[in-house]
């Protein structure tokens, strides 16, 4: 009876199905023959995740290229 109940719950919830992952050749190859550097990766992950701006000291703007700072030519009005 208990088994039937569990089966029923699984059927209704749809959540007892096993999660299946296919693992690709590269991932397995990495596991077989590469290395694990958890401390290095932990340090690096922090650096690569940014809550705000990257603090570049210099502007990338070029003289004459910023539209806000543009100078336009005059229109001809025929007057």
């Amino acid at each position, binding site marked *: 009876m208990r088994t039937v109940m569990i089966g029923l719950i699984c059927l209704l919830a749809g959540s007892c199905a096993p*999660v299946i*992952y*296919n*693992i*690709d*050749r*590269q*991932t*397995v*190859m*990495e*596991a*077989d*023959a*590469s*290395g*694990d*550097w*958890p401390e*290095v*990766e*932990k*340090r*690096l*992950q922090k*650096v*690569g*995740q*940014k*809550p*705000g*701006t*990257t*603090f*570049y*000291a*210099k*502007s*990338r*703007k070029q*003289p*004459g290229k*910023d*539209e*806000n*700072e*543009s*100078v*336009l*030519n*005059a*229109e*001809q*009005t*025929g*007057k």
Partner: protein
Amino acid sequence: MKSLLRILVMGSLLGAAVGVQGKEAASQDTIVQRRLKELPQLVAPTKLTVGPDDNFQVDVDSNERLMTFTRRANLSTQLYFQNLNEVSEQKLLDDSADSRSAVISPDGKTLAFVYYKTNAQGDLCEMPVGSPGEVNCYKIGGAVESPSWWGRDRLLLVRRDNSEKAQLVVVNRQTRQQEVLEQGELWQPTVHASSGRVAFVKQDQEGVRLVLRAPTGTPQIVRLDLPGVSGFPEFSPDGEWLYFSHYFSDSNLDQKLDASDNSVIFRIKVSEVQGKQKLIPQQLTSSNENCSFPRVRREHLYMTCDFEGSLDVYRVPATGVVPADWDASRLANAHQTSRNYAQRILLVNHQYKLGVIKERNEYLRRMLSNFILRQDAVAGRYYLSQLLEGAAKDAQPRLRQLDIFLQALAEKRLQLTNQVTVEFRTKVQKWQAMVKSQPGATARLVSAFLFTLIDQPAPAIKTLGSVRATELREFDDYLLFAAIERLTGRGVTGERLASLYSPILVASRLSDEGKLFYAYQLLLTAQERLSAKERVALVNQLLTRVTSDKVLVPLLKSELVALQLIAEKKDAGKAQAYRELDKLMSETRANYFLRRTLSVRAFDNFLAHDEVQYLTYVATTWLKYTEKSDTEFAYARQIYVDKVLARAYFNWGEKKYRYASNNFYGSLSLTDDLESHYGYIRAMQMDGQSAEVNKVYESLRKREFVADNLGYVEVLLALSQGELTAKTADEALKSLHKIDSAYQSPMYQLLLGYLYLRQVELGREGLHFSPEMLAAAHKHLMLAYDLGRENHRIVASALSNLAALHSQVGNWGMARRFFELREPYGFVEPLEEVHHRWYLARAHFQLADGRAAAEQMAKLGKIAGADLQPAVEQQLGFYNLEGGDYVAAEKYLSQFVARPNLTAWNRVRAQLGLAYAQWKTWQNKKSKSASAERSKVLQTLTQVLAEADKLAPVPASGQQRIALEPLRLKILAGGLKAQLLTGADRAKALKEVAGHLESVGSKLTAVAMTTENWLVFRLKTELQLADLELSGGRKTAAQNYLDGAGSMIEELAQSVDYGFNSQLIDSLVTFWGLARLADYSGKSHKTVSKTTDKLLSKLAQLEDPSGMVGHHVKRLQAIRAATGR
């Protein structure tokens, strides 16, 4: 080494996306926000969807609550809907078929759409909103396009048979009867239900045009006084207006106005469409924004635009981007302060529609001017032709000469290279002949321009030299400038340049605006091409030419002062120079064009020499001299903020955190923008002033300088308090989602995206992660990327996060794409670059590009500190192994395994890689006889096998993506070892591998092995053992192995469902070959016979266009025939 396991698919990660709300500020406003809203400025479109996939074909219900759109991703189109007042976006149907063009019924309950489930041409289908199970389709007979609702009971659409001819069809939903309204080459119909008017696009002998069809009378062609082609008509809800998109300008400069150009949305009054009169419609969007497919509702105009990297849905007020309450004076103000010619074209249109520009001729001249200045010859020629039609006879020759200039400009654009072709030269000579004989400066200027097009600078310069300032007439200054621009850099510099510019600098007919523009261009060219000394000489020379000009003299003097400031080495000298500049700015502040040009030149000069302090001073002065009621104020304010932030970041770079915090504070107190808040908090933290931050914000809050954004600040402060956990990230996200008003801020989206990214990381368990968190992170980061596209500091962070996100979940193609987009921005700290190259290398490796991975790792090795070198060495060895450079792999891996203090797993795996590299290096040598090399490989493998025994399995959890299992190493090392041995040693090694494979059978998932691959591995081992026994003349022993192989073959055949599988066929071929040699008729003979028969019969049913199946079938049949079964 080549693993037999296969294919991970992480699933469709971005399918279940969290939606995007397009929220304009709705909550309590701060003083700053109130001030910002009060600033007169053009409306910026609000983004409602987000890339990287294209989102288009929007429809919105009449209450503007529900939006539906089509998304194109992976070559498939799918329908989505989104509640505009909530954060939700859902796919409407499953992925099994394409769908598109959804329209919401007038009562908002039903969707009609084109569905490709059972018909490749598309069916017209409908379903209740949110009920994908209740799809109901019509039999239309032909391809279905562009459905739209005609009240509740009818649908209007285009039906197309195999020819290009189409029919405009009305479908009755009750009776399902179809009525044909129109036939021909037509597209994109729309209907206004209560008036019964229909509009559509039709092609006839005169071209592609809009047609308006009333319930009675003949259909009217909508004649428009516009260059280009119209499409996508749409009635306003009250039926008074007809909106449409129009390919208006040649934005891609291919000299054609077609669907590849930027589209603009216009509207005309339906009541004005009558007779053959041409109408000038009202322009609603700028051609810079490329918007199309209008959907108009009571409040807003919804549209699809493409100016931020992907097609997305945006909205603006139903009256367009120019505020509806702008009067003549405000339009003139906005026109004066425009930042680009596309903006001016939009505003000139509004000035005409409002009656500010009364004469059509003046309107045409202004439009022609702006199109020439945009270098859009195609649209320019349209307006020129209109001017010509009404021009007096004596004015026509000059206009025709101008037309030759535009034709030549267009033709030059079509040339694929800078080389002058014979054909092009002939055309130019023909045009030369047309203008040469004509009198006047215009003809000579066009002639000079034509010389520049065929690389003849000398006659061009000579001709230009003959032009006097007093001769210049309308448009001549453009021609002169166009010719000078083409000559610049071709030996024309310094004094010659000044002399060529001279007529347009001293011409009395030119306005201040025009003269300042040319002087600005000359100074900019000088900055790009001359030394400081030469520039001073040039400016002094110009001053002698324009002695009494009231705008050019101050501009040139200010240029000299700026050059002096830059040249000064001492602060006091710089300050003295700046005081002179400040005096000039003060004296000339009343002249808008001079103020703007003078300030921009100062920016250009100071920016190039990192004079950030003086950049800020000039920006402050600009802002100070600009009235808040002026449309210039929004630009001046943005420029000020930009310069203050530039100074803040500069000070940060110098590690002057106190100064940086002051700069950020100065900016945030003026703008309340999140970038300033973020910079301020970071700078205060770096300056050791964290404790002060709370007090400062309390004061700002009390003075109403900050309200909603305080939530953002609080989240930032919370994040700086220790390690982030899933719980704190969740709380931070809840707080952030309450700040509706910040939705359009890229900094807000960046922080949201960052928090979701951290949630993905914190929630990851091996290969498992939350697809919902991934989708949310991706969305918010893409929004940050799109909204912050002008700000490289935000873009760089958004791209870093996107790359990190997709690396986290093994979405390697996306990860590589974002890393590659990120790279050109450069890195602030070495560790940032280390992160970038480390994970980019992994992405390359995962995408099977070992060489690129090794290249990245080699670059990383040059910047990484000593502590990272062991990791770099090991990764270099590994990636070179994948890249096929076995010599390099052997070098790095042997260095690595010689290092002390390595973890056992890292050492053993590196040894396995080393053995493989050694083996391949040996194999690749021309002489393979060296037994020393073989012994070296065997020795390394023996070490691997011995050390693998001591390893403990590592389960997959947290950041460990898949489990580490010593047995896998033993199988791989054992298999490799067996290949190096012969005779009894080989048999022993193979038996050991067979034993390991046997024991791994009960935990295949744990060792990431599929049943199919496990069986193949076992079969190969078993058949190799049989072969070995046969080679030794031991038939009975070989027969025993064949006995064992039978059941494995049967299992393998079942696991691949007797499909085409080369491993299975190879195994059968080998089995039958060995069976023949071993005279085998044992217990597996019958089983394998049955399996072979069943397989052959299945294979016979397969389609085999390449002949591959047939080839293998023949192999199998031949070997069976040879066994004499």
